[in-house]
Structures are given as structure tokens and as C-alpha cells.
């Protein structure tokens, strides 16, 4: 039996999740109708295609929206609007100054950066992912929370003894990072080296990166470069990109 308009409407309502109880009953009954079933299969297949395409379009729209948001953000940054009124003589002075500055910049870049500079440029303490600070009614913090929250607040010298007490692999990693902030380079290297070789430790990647940082800080650029090369061997490494910037 050819399908009527009402059958098409019923299928549409089903596909849009809008059947009421009465319609659902009718819909169930229709399942024995071969033409109805065939139409339903065809429309169900089309729906899957439309859904997939709809998702892709929506994703593109969100990506564009994000671009717009970022552009708005950079547009709202203050930009200098004042036009400088400068005579020719002053232009020459400015041009000369710029030339000298450019020359200095060039000369500066010729000098190989020393280890300490690289450390200062790239080191940033690893975020606390163990026991983040959350608003809580619990009156007493556990030892773990105390140690990691002291770390998160940036009180590294106070965090060091607390982390030492914990004696877990995670704590050892954070201990190394904290010691690095305090210039306790050798201790930091020892702790990080330990985690950096543990392939089942989720901080292995991070430890390798911080170990490289520690070597730079301790003026051991060769060891640091070895570690960076090791990181570069694994494109999935979470510090792969950063290591690439530093590896030369």
C-alpha cells in the first residue's frame, strides 16, 4: 500500500523524537507494513548522514566563532592611536638609534645563550594535578592535600619537607620541581632522574622535561641536550614541541 502523508509525518515525528503515546502505538503497528518499513529504513539511513554532516557544520561554526572571539579580544587591546608629530631631524635620530639597537640585537643573538638563560626562559613549575585546591567544608586537610596545595600556592620551600614525607612517586616528581625552584639542583636531578626512567609512571614525560631544565640550571648543557633529544624521539611526548624549540 503506498504511503500517505500521515505516514510520512509519523516517520518524521519518530526521527525527531516527538511521538506521543498514541502516535507511538500507531507507529508500532505500522511496522508490519512492508512499504512503511522500507521508507523508515531509507529515512533512518538519511538521518545518520544528515546528523554527521550537521555535526561537522556545527563544529566549523564553533571554530569560526572562536576565531571571532579571539579577534575581538586582540582588537580590544589598547593600541596606540596618537600620531607623533616629529620633524626630519628627529626622524634621523630615531633611525640611527634603531640601527644601533638592531646591531646590538644581532650581536646579542650571535652569542650562544647560556644554560641559565635557557632555564629562565623555559622553566615553569608543573601544575598541581594531584590534589587541586577546591572549596570544601572539610576542616582538616590530609597530608597529601597539605603538601600539594602548599606547592600550588607557590610556597615551594615549605612544600619541600611536606612532599618528602609523602614518599610516593608522584610526590617525588613534584619534590624535584620544587627543589628546582629553590636552586637545590643536585637533589632535583636525583629525584627527577628516578621518575624519568619509570615507563609506567604518568609523570615520566614531565620528569624528562624537568630533568633537562635541571641540567641547564646546573650548567650541564650536554646532559640537558641528551634529554631533549630523547624527548624528540617520541612525537607523542607531551613536551615534544617545547623540546624542539630548545634542541639546537
Amino acid at each position, binding site marked *: 500500500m503506498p504511503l500517505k502523508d500521515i505516514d*510520512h509525518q509519523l516517520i518524521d515525528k519518530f526521527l*525527531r523524537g516527538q511521538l506521543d503515546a498514541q502516535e507511538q502505538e500507531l507507529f508500532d503497528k505500522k511496522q508490519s507494513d512492508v512499504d512503511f518499513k522500507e521508507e523508515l529504513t531509507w529515512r533512518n539511513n*538519511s538521518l545518520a*548522514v*544528515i*546528523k*554527521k554532516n550537521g555535526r561537522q*557544520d556545527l563544529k566549523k*561554526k564553533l571554530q569560526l566563532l572562536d576565531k571571532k*572571539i579571539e579577534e575581538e579580544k586582540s582588537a580590544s587591546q589598547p593600541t596606540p592611536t596618537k600620531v607623533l608629530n616629529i620633524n626630519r631631524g628627529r626622524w634621523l635620530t630615531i633611525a640611527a638609534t634603531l640601527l644601533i639597537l638592531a646591531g646590538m640585537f644581532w650581536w646579542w643573538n650571535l652569542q650562544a645563550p647560556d644554560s641559565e638563560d635557557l632555564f629562565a626562559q623555559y622553566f615553569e613549575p608543573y601544575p598541581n594535578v594531584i590534589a587541586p585546591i577546591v572549596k570544601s567544608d572539610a576542616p582538616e586537610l590530609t597530608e597529601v592535600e597539605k603538601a600539594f596545595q602548599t606547592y600550588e600556592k607557590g610556597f615551594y620551600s615549605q612544600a619541600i619537607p611536606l612532599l618528602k614525607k609523602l614518599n610516593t612517586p608522584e610526590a617525588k616528581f613534584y619534590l624535584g620541581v620544587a627543589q628546582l625552584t629553590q636552586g637545590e639542583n643536585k637533589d632535583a636531578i636525583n629525584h627527577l632522574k628516578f621518575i624519568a626512567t619509570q615507563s609506567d609512571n604518568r609523570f615520566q614525560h614531565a620528569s624528562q622535561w624537568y630533568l633537562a631544565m635541571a641540567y641547564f640550571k646546573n650548567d650541564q648543557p650536554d646532559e640537558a641536550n641528551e634529554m631533549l633529544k630523547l624527548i624528540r624521539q617520541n612525537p607523542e611526548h607531551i613536551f615534544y614541541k617545547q623540546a624542539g624549540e630548545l634542541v639546537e
Partner: protein
Amino acid sequence: MEENPIKDSQQLLEKIRVEGMSALEEVYREYKTDFLNFAFRFGLSESDCLDAYQDVMIAFYENVMEGKLTTLTSSLKTYLFSIGKYNLLNQLKAKNRIVKTEEIFPEIEATENDYFESIELSHRQQVIETAFQQLGEQCRELLTLFYYHRYPIKNIQVAMNYSNENTVKATKSRCMKSLKSILEKTEIY
């Protein structure tokens, strides 16, 4: 007056149901920074985190439009974080990174969502997809608004500038027929 985020979220859900995609922009702007700060804790790259945020937005949107999400039992932010956590943990798993889930934001429970199971089209559906790509842009848009976004006919009429609701219905039927005839032609050759 005291702010009531859950009540506000409730109104927001209603707004999305009525206004569709344009209301989603508001949510996107509102929670982007918070979500990214949350996502960075999982140790993924910035672009992975942004991608995850956009996926969470789509999952949330689909749930609202499909009527699966009608009331929130927590704040909208917690809801977004919980489906986000599920997505982020999945991504870490896909990269073979071992994570002790209880250690990252233990107060937020990872919630599964249909959206994150990717749509694998059957062979038949792939053939239909090729035909769908050959439809005119207007038809593709109309069918997407009707079947994917589940916009009411009235909203489609406004969004696509049709003269009345009947034209929308007639065009929709015509588009489905065109899709079928393109498909039949492909299958003959």
C-alpha cells in the same frame, strides 16, 4: 537578589531550545576560559583542549535539542565539566597515557555521552552521503535544520527566509525526493 545559577541555567536551556544555535554562542563565550583552565590540568595540548571544548558544546547542544536534557541537577558549568572530563580522559586513553582518574578533579564525575561515540556510516549510508553532497545548498541546510537541529518549522521559515510554513514543508519533501532520485541515478550507473 541572590543569584541562582541553576535557575538561570534552566532559562538558558529553554532559550537554546527556542533560539537554537544562536543561543549556543552565549554559552560558548561564557564558559570557554573556565573550561580551558580545567582541561589544561589533563596535560593535553592547547589545541586538543579547545577541540574538546567545542565537542562538549556540540554534545550539550544535541542533548538540549533532542530533549534528553530538560532539567539540570547541577550548575551548567558542572554539567559541561563532567561531560568534558569523560571526553578528555578518552583522549588521554587514545594517546596511551595512563591516568588515575580519581586524581584529577575528583569532585567532578566523568559522564558518558552519545556524541563521543563517532558515527561510523554503513556502506549504504556512505552512498547516501555522496548523494547528499550533490544536493543544492538550500536543501542541505533545510534538511539539516529539520533533522539534526530539530528546529520547529516556524523557526526554519524565519531562519531561511521562506514566505510561510507550508513552503517549508513542501520544500522539505521536495528535497528528500531529490536526494532519492540522485541516489537512484548513482545506483544505475
